[in-house]
């Protein structure tokens, strides 16, 4: 089947099987920044912002969200023009293998969109659905704090 979505601000028609997950539909549609880590909603590598909320795209049927607005890491910023969150992850040393990073970045975006000045506890809770095996999370927390600070300072 086919469905129309607004992905990273651009209308896009995706083809997918009726029982396909949003993750599958996005990856088949060329959005390879959405990573597949577990297929059980536990690792968060596939996290995207769907109509303003963070979701693990492996736990959402594509057919159930046709017409939605989806934001992925590529929609947030580019290498030439990164989003402050993406730059903060680099600057804080929060990226090692990077496989979890697009999902982590989206979780951070979802958090900071609603709460520009989160406490450490709120940061931990917001990232609870995103697993990272490389960093021990220490520098990821630093990155979120740094991003929050920069986004507050520069609007």
């Amino acid at each position: 089947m086919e469905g129309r979505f607004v992905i990273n601000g651009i209308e896009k028609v995706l083809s997918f099987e009726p029982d396909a997950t949003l993750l599958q539909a996005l990856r088949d549609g060329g959005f390879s920044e959405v990573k597949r880590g577990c297929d059980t909603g536990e690792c968060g590598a596939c996290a995207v912002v769907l109509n303003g909320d963070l979701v693990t795209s492996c736990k959402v049927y594509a057919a159930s969200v046709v017409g939605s607005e989806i934001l992925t890491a590529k929609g947030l910023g580019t290498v030439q023009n990164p989003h402050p969150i993406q730059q903060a992850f680099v600057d804080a040393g929060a990226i090692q293998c990077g496989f979890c990073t697009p999902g982590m970045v989206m979780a951070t975006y979802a958090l900071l969109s609603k709460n520009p000045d989160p406490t450490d506890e709120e940061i931990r809770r917001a990232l609870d659905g995103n697993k990272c095996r490389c960093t021990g999370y220490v520098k990821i927390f630093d990155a979120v704090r740094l991003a929050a600070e920069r986004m507050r300072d520069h609007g």
Partner: protein
Amino acid sequence: MDRDFSSVGHDVEKIDGLSLATGTGRYTDDFDAPGTLHVAVLYSPHAHGIIKDIDDSEAWKVPGVVDVMSYKNAYDDMPKVVHTTAGQGFPEPSPYDSWLFDDKVRFAGDRVAAVAAETLDIAREAVSKIKVEYELQKPLFDPERAMDPGVPVVHDRDEYMPIPVPYDPSKNLMAEKIFSIGDVEKGLAEADIVLDQVYHTHYAHHCMMEPHSAFALFDETGRMIVYSSTSVPFHVRRIVAQVLDYPLRKVHVIKPRVGGAYGGKQEAFIEPLAAKFALRTGRPVKAILSREEVFTSSRTRHPMRVHVTAGVMKDGTITALRMDDLMTAGAYGPHGLTVLCNAASKVLPLFNKVENVEFIGRTVYTNQPVGGAYRGYGVTQATFGFMQFIDDLTRRLDVDILEYVKKWHIKEGEGSPVFEAIGEGKAGVPQVITCCKLSECIDRGAEAIGWSDKRGRHISNSPGKVRGVGMAVSMQGSGIPLIDMGSAYMKLNEDGSCNLLMGASDTGTGSDTVMCQIAAEVLDISTDMIVPLSSDTDVTPFDVGAYASSGTYVSGGAVRACAEDFLKNIMKVASVMLEVPVERLDTSGGRIWDSDNPDVSTDFGSLCCFSLYGAGENMQQIQGYGSYTSPVSPPPFIAQFAEVEVDTFTGRVEVLRFVSAVDCGKALNPKMTEGQVEGGVLNGIGYALTEQYLFDDKGRMTNPDFGNYKVFGSLDVPKIETILVDSYEETGPFGAKSVSEVCINGPAPAIANAIYDAVGVRIFDLPLTSEKVLAALKDVDR
């Protein structure tokens, strides 16, 4: 150290950082080609059995199925090659005991058949229609009984060991390493007290976020390209060629970004499968494991029984030390010898003043999941026992463990006979420690955790909760001496930038960035003038791969040698261009000048233009090349401290703080080094407390997902602190040793020791679950 570096030692930004943060960095599954087939695998639900027959006729009938493969047809057009999946030096110190397909299954999760189809869903549906007739055999699940007469034999085909070491599959003996120095019995007889204790470590998984992935296709000339999520691309090329009986020159392995490895991707077991399907179908083929498959069918940390016996005098002198380790290989033996050897060679030398030392090491086959390389590589397992043993010993002697370890640990200028006795499966090489700041690590770590205020105080801030602190020290190596080798190649471009082509594999550690820093340091230019390309078997020179903590030390040594050769060649051409003798030339910041007359100068870019376009008969590509292998493996040292709170009502252990003070030589990129330590520490804490494989009585893993395996998340993270103790290893590139593995060894014993400090119970087997702690507390109450 008063060395002034401009590139190394600084927090240079990770070179691929922004591409990973913005999602443009590509991993194996992100590559695609029209007409790609997808692979699904049928795994054995039984731990041990002979396949009497496979009926795949219904699978072939599923629309979209292109190929179905099993032992029945895989060898129609090639020999059945027995090999090892371990990506190690050649010949590998691992048994040749694996086949692409076999008609015997040896663990629940063993590969039985596979389907290549137009979509993964179709392939999975077809797999479900394959009927297999098994003749079940009694499984072997108890490593302690593996060598008893009459027990099931896991391997009985044409398996063999490619190097001359003990190997007897008829007795399930996968590896054996025994050595003794002095006379342990005599030493034990002379001792005031003899301590004897057995510890057990458990199955654990790497849990890299990116599953094992391979994508095989043909280029326009008909050569096979294999994209692989691997830490050992050159070994993958060799193994693919070997297993498929296919010319190595026709295989081109590319390692794109890799989503974590920690040793788990030092194996080639899905690449030959994808490549074989590509050969049979002529189509691009993708084989990506699901998370469940990663847990059940890839590689694990080897479980180990660690039995330590020591004779000790009242003054603390250890008169004899015996370590008797029994390691579980599982159904196949990749790394089964070398992990065992590391449990001795990187643990026993820590206490190098013991005159009588004995190591009895055996690895046995069982019908369980397959062990492999995993960060820490045997040292983690043995350190769990050994450092609890030392904690226990010092408590019995009523001496401070910090002072005890500081007195007896190996020091600069000292060696250990163990270094010579044991290497990677065979004899080792003599080694004198040239850099060891372990005592300083102990002091600084103790101060940071507040040791003197907390040790033995049983502090309680709420009812039923008691705090304690514990510590552990450990060491690792930096590459495998005279076995590991890396190489690199550089060339100069018109803008003064330099391509750095290297075999080193960045699996997420930041090695590409550190290699650029090393090259930039030699050339005295900024890091962003170095353009790295790593691990493409067609393009880059050889490297054994990212393992054995070899990246910065061995591959970095190659990059330094390469950059030095490159700089020499730059100066030669500059001498021609400037008409100044080489010995009068100076360089800095990409400029070269006559030291006698600084007005006579050029820069790297102009020099390159001269050499490429204007040097007449001297026109050439300015380039450089270097290889490096080390005769020694300088160990990094670490002192790690845990502060825990034990809930005496529930047995729950919470780590409040974890401090690591590490001597890794000069940290070439301090922020990345800290990141490595923090990741290893949290992995080690998870291993210590919650992560475990649960099995049913048929030997099947019952919790193959992150939640039930209990991987740590952001809410579980304690306060983790890392102290980089300043040191300098003369043999390493700009003073560097390694850091990647050593940081995972201490959490389990430090936490176990902290639990004892808090509530006086000692847990001898991992993981340190609430159930075990509670049971132990109840035993004490009785």
